[in-house]
């Protein structure tokens, strides 16, 4: 990937992020923040690559900490977002769910 291609990717991704969020209702702000927190958990693949290429004990130690932290970001972000979104139901969906259980 050349520098200029990377720059294009950066620009287009920035506009994508802005547009995807632009019309989000307030009620989803916290879940969405949590969801985007999960998405940057992709840092895990970078931490894996960094540790995979580490040689000295210092590099290995820092790489190991990186993988540990990144895995925490990805897994924790997923669990919390999933729990939050699980609670979002409209009154229609709630009534239907209640009917099923009765």
């Amino acid at each position, binding site marked *: *990937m050349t*520098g200029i291609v*990377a720059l294009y*990717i*950066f620009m287009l*991704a*920035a506009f*994508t*992020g*802005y547009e*995807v*969020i632009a019309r*989000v*209702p*307030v*009620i*989803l*702000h*916290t*879940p969405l*923040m*949590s*969801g*985007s*927190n999960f*998405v*940057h*958990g*992709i*840092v*895990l*693949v*970078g931490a*894996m*690559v*960094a540790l995979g*290429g*580490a*040689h000295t004990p*210092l*590099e290995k130690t*820092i*790489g190991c*900490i*990186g*993988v*540990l*932290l990144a*895995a*925490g*970001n*990805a897994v*924790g972000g*997923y669990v919390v977002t*999933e729990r*939050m*979104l699980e*609670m*979002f*139901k409209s009154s229609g969906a709630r009534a239907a769910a209640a009917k099923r259980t009765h």
Partner: protein
Amino acid sequence: MPAWLSADLAIQASYFVTAALFIIGLKRMSSPVSARSGILWAGAGMAVATLVTFLYPGMSNYGLMLPAMFVGGGLAWWSGKRVAVTNMPQMIALYNGMGGGAAAAIAAVELYRGGTQGYTTSTLAVAGGIIGAVSFSGSAIAFGKLQGLITRSIRFSGQQILNLLVLAAALVLGGLVASHANASPAVVTGFFVLALLLGLTMTLPIGGADMPVVISLYNALTGLAVAFEGFVLNNAAMIIAGTVVGSAGTLLTQLMAKAMNRSLGNVLFSGFGDTGAAATGEVTGSLKPIEAADVGVMMAFAQKVIIVPGYGMAVAQAQHKIWELAQLLIDRGVNVRFAIHPVAGRMPGHMNVLLAEAGVPYDLISDLDEINAEFETADVALIIGANDVVNPVARTDKSSPIYGMPILNADKAKNVIVIKRGKGAGFSGIENALFYLDNTRMLYGDAQKAGAELIQAIKAV
């Protein structure tokens, strides 16, 4: 394996799919109807990317990698499943800080190894390193403040100058490393120590009330750090995901700061947020208490009741009681609505999550813009542990620190009932003029207990 099906092609193709899944997932998360499936799409993308990364050519240290993944992931899984909904904001801060720390760790490994070729790569590694490290230590402080581990905001004169000095020193060392002038391990270490220190000194003076904005900002910063380290590692999935989060997070931070009528610079540098300004203004009138039984009668025979929850409801874990109360009223034919201020609680939409947990359907919940005109026709506005977001001085008193902040116009309702633990001022320390109005009555007690009393009172009607 055919020649064209190389590990590299499999990795690139999978990262491509992952990037698409992340964007679809985020898009779905931005609508209440499809939100729940959004996290599943994004989660599938993460699983694909993680698994395929094991195919990376020339990787070693699996003996360290797998235990680290299991320990980090396992602890996060355990804590994420156990955390109460009220405490979710600080957990988001914590997980976000971990991501920032991981980005800084990638930068550290690459810089110690001298693996960055060219000035662009080394500059981006340094930039991602400082941003990630600030996000890491800053988020840790944000977690400590919201969790109640750090109760004081440490402020002293010259604090901004100290921050500037730390930043300048970090940038000088970062510049040495990035320009390959002196990338010795000692300089790299000094750079990271200063970056971590900057996160601490920047975040310590910011008050608890401003933490939502700060967490959102650090979320965006971590995204940016991940994108920069993606450039360093030549990893398109990291660049795209990190940049999307960086820009979306920046927008979200702006929306939150706007809802509080503050600029981001004001939040970060003014030191306001839990002690408030000295100019509180004189409020005339008196606080008029009321008994739960009277409130019960008032609400049972009302046509329209608007409930305004705030952080007090979250602290008392009263959302279930309040929904039980609302259901009783709805069964009696009362039109019940929930009015949510964008910055009520500790994060934007924090109240929505709590009410959703209790089972309140989201179509009963209204934003500030939707509901504000309706207060005039409401018989009762029930304020539960909310304070600054209903303070009418934001409309009237130019000397007030919250002047100009959009508020819920609860004072326009025929009767205002305020459930409040005591007579103290709100989180910002500003006296609330709403409490002294002629049509306002105070119901003292914590929200859980007051809710239970109101339920009894309505049942007795």
